């Protein structure tokens, strides 16, 4: 397996969407390729960081204001 072939299956590997056979081929490539190993690990980390850190916070005071405005309109028919 080449690095290009590995990269084409990177998402499937990350999302655990590969057959056992493909997985073992990918793992063989990973053992001998430091670059692909770094790419895989840092891509996983990228996803994890974005998933666990809220980039845009909606403050509670703004939430309350929006919710009240929505419900007031709903009660009176939108």
């Amino acid at each position, binding site marked *: 397996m080449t690095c290009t072939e590995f990269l084409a299956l990177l998402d499937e590997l*990350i999302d655990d969407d590969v057959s056992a056979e493909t997985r073992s081929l990918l793992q063989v490539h990973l053992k001998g390729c430091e670059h692909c190993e770094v790419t895989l690990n840092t891509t996983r980390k990228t996803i994890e960081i*974005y998933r666990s850190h809220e980039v845009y916070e909606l403050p509670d005071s703004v939430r309350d204001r929006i919710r009240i405005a*929505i419900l007031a309109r709903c009660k009176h028919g939108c």
Partner: protein
Amino acid sequence: MATIQQIGENEQHPDVALVASARTGDVQAFETLVNKYDRQIFRIAQHITQNKEDAQDVVQDAFLKAYEKLDQFQGNSKFYTWLVRIAVNESLMRLRKRRTGKMVSIDDDIETEEGSVPRDLADWSPNPEQNYGQAELAEILRKTIQGLPHGFRIVFVLRDVDGLSTEETAETLGLSVPAVKSRLLRARLQLRERLSRYFRKKKAGEK
């Protein structure tokens, strides 16, 4: 490894009952749905519009439109993905207004090869996010994702942050499954490449 929580096919999603009640005029049931999803809708709107006020308006307008159209909601899709579709359209409309009527679509600005091949192959330090304060890290994450074309950004946010499936993301954005897959890979790789500037292991003597 990242896993996406899935609800069994035969299990009824808790939103189904809430939507049914809201349809009969139960505003409290609708309020529960607002409370449940307002932060996520805000996040999506902010990622598309890149403007706080617009994003707040989108939250309000998207929920109002959803309430108004509850009768048209088909139970065969999830309420959340239906709501997201409304929010994405509202966000694109706001963006168009800001750009003085210029057409804006989810396909804009994606003709880029940047980041499709990894260049920065340095490993990252362990838990690199811990080298930054919370505010500083948030700024890095914001700046980095803002640099992505919005057609990539929104696919990444729906798939990886919100946890929608590839099929749901495709349906929500009106894209094909292969288009979602190719955008997701490029979005992930571009973000990784850009974050590498901050998170890569420093060589001895480097600041």
